[in-house]
């Protein structure tokens, strides 16, 4: 842990603050994942860790390695950009899959979801919207 002593105090305080806040946000997301009642509510919980949790920890890591290595270390940004691009895709697909499953009565219908707007009743809707 020798490298930790090389940081100037201002940077150490910023890095510590970012890491603590980011980890706390992610932990709150985990708490929400367990505490919230329905699936659609739980869909919101991990976004805390995905948005500012990831951003703060990536920024802290960038700042720390840039100062200890003496050059600009920016490859952590790749994780940030990757998470920014992929999170909406996974959340969207999960939300749509859940909606489709909740409209399908054969799978057991335990959440109230708004019906489709078309004249086609939800039961015999083989394709849905792709």
């Amino acid at each position, binding site marked *: *842990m*020798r490298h*930790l*002593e090389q*940081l*100037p*105090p201002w940077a*150490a*305080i910023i*890095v*510590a*603050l970012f*890491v*603590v806040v*980011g*980890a*706390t946000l*992610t*932990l709150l*997301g*985990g*708490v929400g*994942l*367990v505490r919230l009642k329905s*699936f659609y509510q*739980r*869909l919101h*919980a*991990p976004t805390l*860790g*995905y948005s500012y*949790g*990831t951003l703060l*920890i*990536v920024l*802290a*890591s960038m700042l*720390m*390695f840039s100062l*200890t*290595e003496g050059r600009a*270390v920016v*490859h*952590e940004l*790749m*994780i940030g950009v*990757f*998470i920014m691009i*992929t999170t909406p*895709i*996974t959340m969207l*697909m*999960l939300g*749509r*899959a*859940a909606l*489709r*499953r909740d409209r399908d009565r054969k799978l057991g219908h*335990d959440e109230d979801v708004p019906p489709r707007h078309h004249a086609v009743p939800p039961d015999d809707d083989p394709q*849905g919207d792709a």
Partner: protein
Amino acid sequence: MTAEILRFALGYAQIALILALALACWRMLLGPRAQDRVLGLDTMYSIAMLLFLVIGMGNGNVFFFEGALVIAVLGFVTTVIAAKFLMRGEVIE
């Protein structure tokens, strides 16, 4: 002094992230329906990625970053395929 602050912050972050990992795992094991389990697994991937970043900061080792990137990519692919399977009942149409 600065090292103490950082060591405390990184230790706290590791404990918090492991706790979050346990909570997400709880949701994955318990989850009343399949979509809850997939959501729990997806969250576990993202938390494991953050945990790798924080451990890498604690060790001063840049190579944990690559592990984090691999976990992020795997998590994305896993979740997309699982969601597609939930939606259609098959992965490749």
